[in-house]
């Protein structure tokens, strides 16, 4: 049976219905939530992890676990913000798991996306971000690319807001140095 995919983005009210149905394990509702939020969550995971495969695995896990996780969604905040927090946590867990298995890829530092719009300058910038240690890159991505506050980052990463500021400073300095040192 093919799934009906809405031609337009569902309204907020309709999304609330889908959330309820997805919570009960309805595959069609889950598919609609994926269609609505999957791309932005993938981009977020990609920015945190640096590889398409890891980002896809994170989004996979988020949506497979979503029906159970929605039991904790209190519907007081925006769904997309809640989903983004869940995605960040899942990505960070994956990152730590990868570190523990020493799978930090040789590829990760060198890999740059094949997306359209990549100029040589952007490729170098992406490589500089990918080369950052995980602790610094997480803060840089969350603050400068995703717009989280230091207080929110502190909660997500289990660090203090001051530590978040320090890491951001170091990350920005490192990226700048790498860009300036290029041959």
């Amino acid at each position: 049976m093919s799934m009906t995919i809405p031609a337009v983005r569902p309204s907020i009210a309709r999304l609330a219905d889908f959330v309820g149905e997805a919570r009960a394990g309805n595959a069609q509702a889950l598919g609609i939530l994926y269609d609505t939020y999957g791309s932005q969550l993938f981009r977020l995971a990609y920015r945190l992890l640096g590889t398409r495969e890891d980002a896809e695995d994170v989004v996979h896990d988020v949506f497979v676990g979503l029906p159970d996780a929605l039991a904790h969604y209190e519907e007081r905040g925006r769904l997309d913000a809640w989903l983004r927090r869940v995605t960040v946590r899942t990505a960070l867990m994956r990152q730590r798991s990868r570190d523990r298995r020493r799978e930090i890829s040789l590829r990760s530092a060198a890999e740059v996306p094949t997306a359209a719009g990549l100029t040589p300058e952007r490729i170098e910038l992406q490589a500089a971000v990918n080369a950052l240690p995980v602790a610094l890159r997480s803060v840089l991505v969350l603050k400068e690319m995703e717009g989280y506050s230091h207080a929110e980052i502190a909660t997500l990463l289990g660090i203090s807001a001051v530590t978040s500021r320090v890491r951001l400073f170091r990350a920005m300095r490192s990226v700048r140095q790498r860009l300036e040192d290029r041959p």
Partner: protein
Amino acid sequence: MTTDLRTKLQELPAPEARADLRERIRASRAAGERVILATDRRASRLTAPRAIAAAIVLTILGWGAYSVFVGRNRGIPSGAAVFAGSVLWPTPALSQEVGASDTVGHARYPLLDRVPSRALQSGSWSYRATMTTDGLVTSEQGVRTFSIAPTIARGEPAVAIVTTGTGRYSPEGFTDSLLVSRDSLRLLRHSKRYGRHPGGVDFPAAPPRYLSWRDADINWVGSIYRALFQLTPLNSSWRGSVYVPWITYPNRVRALAIDLRVTGSERVTVPAGTYDSWVISVRFRDDEARVYVDKTSGLVVKLAMPMGEDAVWEQVLTGAS
């Protein structure tokens, strides 16, 4: 310059996820895969005096609970001890490596940290999966084939325990396999494949504690039950508990108990025949699933698991060879 760099960072493009990711998610859900995500529960807002009072009360309660709780869980065996025995069921075995402070609640029954040394019966069995909503609408969820076959792995006799299937949302099929030592039943490898996405974890002979934690898989249906109950003699008072990892925060994995017990016996009719079965209740947090096991062969003839409030996901035995 900082502003300029920020702008450039925000403009960095990202690739799109592959088109089959949506299908992969559907396949995993249809196959009964479960992922427990780290969600945030908002703490209720407390005023300062209330917070102080709450802290005092919690400190007192915490001290008392710690004394009782730690004392109760001192009997949890070490990871090395568990691995030295029969570890057909990888996740709970790995979970029992944790100490008391990492354990949420505690097991109600004796831990199933050993499986009796019996040979697994070779063969192949097929199951039909369905989802019934509101007790009225039943939709087909594909078929599963479960097989047990002798093989050789790492130069030693081993047993391959494999569940393959297709589902409503997984036309390319999926495979979930366990490779265990024939003699010790120690898990050698757990691998899964959904469509074109293979993945597997090798379990070394002496796993580093934390490596095994993260790679443990919460897979408490399907293959595990079908193999476990073949090996475990059941009776009307049988009961046992296991711990599985529960991820509560990015850097925190805790152990949560699953409690299993025989709640009765029932004559169950499925497409493959009619079986006098033990009914086993499986409690995991607030969920309860039921597994029906043939009294003679130890074969799982039916699995029933609630999916939300109104739906039940079932597998029933359709044939054996």
